[in-house]
Every structure is written in C-alpha cells, then in structure tokens.
C-alpha cells in the first residue's frame, strides 16, 4: 500500500471522451477527509462523468483515481462501494416495487455467503435496528411499509441517501441532492448532511443550487469543459469572475443556475 497521495480521494489527469467530445479532459480533483466539498459547473462540463469515473461506472481512458492512498482505477462499482464510497444519483435510483424498509436491506447483502443467502432472513436484528434509526433520521420511518414507488420526489432522494447510509460509507458522492426538491426539504437535507459530516463522513456534492452549495460546503471545485479549473472557499468562488464566465460562456442558456 504505497501512499501515492495524501488526499482522501484524488483524481489525477482523468480523460474520457465520447466520440469527439472530451467529457473529461485531464481532470484532477482532491477531496480532503472530513470535509464537505462542492462540485459546480455548467451542464455538460463533466461533473456526472467525473462521478461515474470515481464510482467505477465508467472507465477512464487516461489518468488515475486514488482512495485513501490506493488506486481504485478500473475497479467495478460494487468493489468501490465495498471500499466505502456511496453514491446517489441525479435521477434517483430507488427500488420502486419494494417497500421502503426492504430498500434499506439491499445494501446489506454484499457480505453474505453463497447459499446461506437462500436460507437467511432478509434483515438481521442489528440491521433492522440500524435501518429504523436511519429512517427515523431522514424522517421516513412512518412510511417504512409503503412501496418506495409511492414516495414523493423529495422523499425518494431521502430514501436513496438512507439506503446508502446503512452500508456506512466513509465518502458520500451526492449528485444534485437538492434538484427538484422543495425549499423546506432542501434546508432539512442540508442539516442532515452537516450532521453526518459532524460524525466524520466526507461529502462530495454536485449541485446547481448555488445557495445550497456555497452555504454548505467547506470547499468548492468549479468544472468547465471536462476539467476542474478552480478550487477555493465558497466566498472566493462566489466572487471569482471566471466562475460566472464559465456559466455564461456556454451557448446553452437553459441552465437553471441560481446565482446568489
């Protein structure tokens, strides 16, 4: 275990292209342990591709990804999840045909032996206790027996966070957690993230809601055209003219940015 890097998570010179378009162009980013880090940038700047590269969903053509000093480049999504990197999605992935409580048990499956899984009950009593605790934390406990498909959009985001949390990841990657969520829930979500952070969890958050990102994060990275071009404290990012340029420089004005 050679320490290639001192950062908690580090991406070095990642490159990935689709046809002629470089979704990641020599992209590098460092995440410090115990911090909430933000990742912003206009649509198509490569934020989600970077998430996919870190979580092993997409392979990168060049560059490396390190987690706690070890290379995780080329590992599969389940291996990376097992290492303690949990992730939520822009388009929420919940298991709609299963109940909220059953959703909580999915991420606890990975350590189970081959044929034992056929006879062992779905959740052990410790897992059940933990699931109840986490559902209480995100406020979904009263809906535990409802099918997940019946939840509202915001509740689905909370459930996705909850079922990732049961696996106790040390690093959480959240892809637009506040997108399409109503204001009171956004505030609640922010409180949840701060609380989890106080327990020692590290966050990397992609978000379009600038207020949310700039008030929540300790550090913010700004992406444009496939690479991170600046990293700084929220107040630095807020006042940097290059950031506004990055958003205004693109042709696509459908961007739903909320400039504070």
């Amino acid at each position, binding site marked *: 275990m050679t320490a290639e890097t001192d950062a908690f998570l580090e991406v070095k010179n990642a490159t990935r292209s689709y046809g002629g378009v470089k979704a990641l162009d020599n992209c590098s980013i460092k995440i410090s342990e115990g911090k909430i880090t933000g990742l912003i940038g206009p649509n198509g700047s490569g934020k989600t591709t970077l998430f996919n590269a870190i*979580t092993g*969903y997409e392979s990168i053509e060049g560059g490396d990804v390190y987690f706690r000093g070890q290379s995780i480049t080329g590992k599969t*999504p*389940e291996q990376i*999840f*097992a290492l303690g990197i*949990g*992730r939520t*999605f822009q388009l929420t*992935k*919940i*298991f*709609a*045909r*299963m109940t909220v409580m*059953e959703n909580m*048990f*999915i*991420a606890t*499956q*990975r350590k*189970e032996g*081959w044929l*034992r*899984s*056929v*006879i*062992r*009950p*779905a959740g052990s009593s410790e897992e059940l206790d933990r699931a109840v605790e986490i559902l209480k934390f995100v406020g979904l406990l009263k809906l535990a027996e409802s099918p997940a498909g019946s939840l509202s959009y915001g509740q689905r985001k909370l459930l996705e966070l909850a*079922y*990732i949390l049961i*696996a106790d990841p040390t690093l959480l990657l959240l892809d637009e957690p506040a997108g399409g969520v109503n204001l009171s829930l956004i505030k609640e979500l922010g409180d949840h993230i701060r609380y989890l952070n106080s327990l020692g969890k590290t966050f990397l958050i992609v978000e379009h809601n600038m207020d949310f990102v700039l008030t929540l994060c300790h550090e913010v990275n700004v992406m444009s055209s496939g690479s991170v071009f600046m990293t700084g404290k929220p107040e630095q990012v807020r006042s940097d003219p290059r950031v506004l340029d990055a958003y205004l420089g693109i042709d696509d004005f459908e961007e739903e940015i909320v400039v504070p």
Partner: protein
Amino acid sequence: MSAGTLEMAILDGILTGGVYALMAAGLTLIFGVLDMINIAQGIFVILGAYASYSLEHSFGIGLFEGLIITIPAMFLLGAFIEWAFIRRLGEYNRVSMSILVTYAVTIVIEGVLLLHFGSNYRSLTASYVTQSFHVFGNYLPKIYLYGFLLALASVLVLYFILYKTRLGVSVRAAMDNRFAAQLVGVEVKRVSTLTFAIGVAVTAVGGMVFGAVQPFTPNSSYDLISRLLTIVVLGGLGSVGGALVGALVMVVVEDIISVAWTPTWATLIYFAVLVIVLLLKPQGLFGQREVRAQ
C-alpha cells in the same frame, strides 16, 4: 353436458394451472432478473420428465422420491448453462441473442434425448397416476391433486425465498433496477446464476407432473414453451404473481370452452382473451409499464 362436467373442468383447470404456474414462474423470474427470454424452459420441463422416467425405469425410484435427485440436478444444469452461455451475452441485442442461445440449448438437449430415448411417446406410471378420486360424478386421477399440491408447495417456497430471505431481497432488487442494485453491492452475476438455476430447478417438478399427466416425446417442448410464453406475457413479464394468474386463466378458459362448447375452439378462445388483454393492457395483467427502468 352431464352434471358436474363444468365443475370438473374448472377443478381440472385449477389443478393443471398450478403446474403451469410453477413452470411459468421460473420463466418469468429468469426474465425479470436476467433480462432475457429463456426459450429452453420447455425442453427443461421435458428433460425433467425424462429424468423422472429414467430413475423410475432404471432404478425403480418413485416419481416423488426421484425429485430429491432431479431438483438438485436441474439446479446444477441451470447454473452451468447460465455460466457457460448466458453470462457471455452482452447488453447489445440481449433479448434477441438470448432467444437464439437458449434455442440452441433446446436443440442440443432435444437431440440428446432423441438419440437416447428415440421419438416414441413415453409416459410416467405409478399407482397414483392410474388411481383416481371420485369427484363431481367424475374420476380425477390422483396425480392431478398431488401434482397440484407439489406445485403449490414449490410456488410457496419460491415466494418465501423471494420475500423473506437475503437472496430474495437481492433478486427483487436486481429485477427492479439491476444497475442500481449492483452499485449498492448486490452481486448481480451471482444472483443471476442462482435465479437461472432456481428457474430451471422448478422444471424438475413441472416435468414430473407433466409427464405423469400426459405422454411426451423430445419434441413436446415446442407446444409447452409457446404456452408458457403466452402465460408469462398475459400475466406481465417479470411478475411471479402474474404468472400464477396467467396460468390459471389459460387452463381454466381452455377447459371450460372444451366442455361447454368444443375442444376445437378452446385454444383459439384463449388466444382471443390474450389479445384482448394485451390491447387493453399492453404490459400484461400485472406487468410494469417499463419492465426495466434504468
């Protein structure tokens, strides 16, 4: 139409439907988790029937006792076929490719059976195959009831596995959203192998009952798979409950038409019902509008 004939037809339909339901449940589970159509499900049933036949004729092992050997054997065969062929399928054109691959498996198994057993009709015999209960003024072979109870027990075991165990959570998560399940650590490859193996293992039971109720040849699988596919489509692809209802609808409709009108039209009427259901609900009775939401 003599008194009791209709009741008898319904009873017969329910009993036979239970066996079809079990075979179709295996098929729909495989579809749900592996995103593929297993055309070989028909020949697996016939293989199960021949396995029971061989055990009985060569070793004198009774039909029900023989299941202790045939169920694990079919499970292992299923695991092997998944590992050897299905796992190699890519995402591109997956469903069509799976039909070709499992059709090839069908032809190979059919060829082996033809070589070994020839093309004459065989049937499974036992005391409970020839003995009957007296109900509604008619005779009902005991095997119908025993077969139904066995199929029912198997379906209950399937339900228990699906809804109460850790494997069940993984299987249903993979059916719901394979990609997301993989991301939270469900080992979809392993779950796929187990699901395919379980889906094939149930054909040992289905084959034994099928072979006891009617004579079979290695060619019998084609009629069977077309019926199983219509059951699964009627019930909704990927829905185990749908497979149960679909099987009952098929057999009961056919049996009632046969006795109330004429056997000639029975299958046609069933297909008319199928077409009407699909016109009204293209996803089948219990299917999801989008079978796999990615």
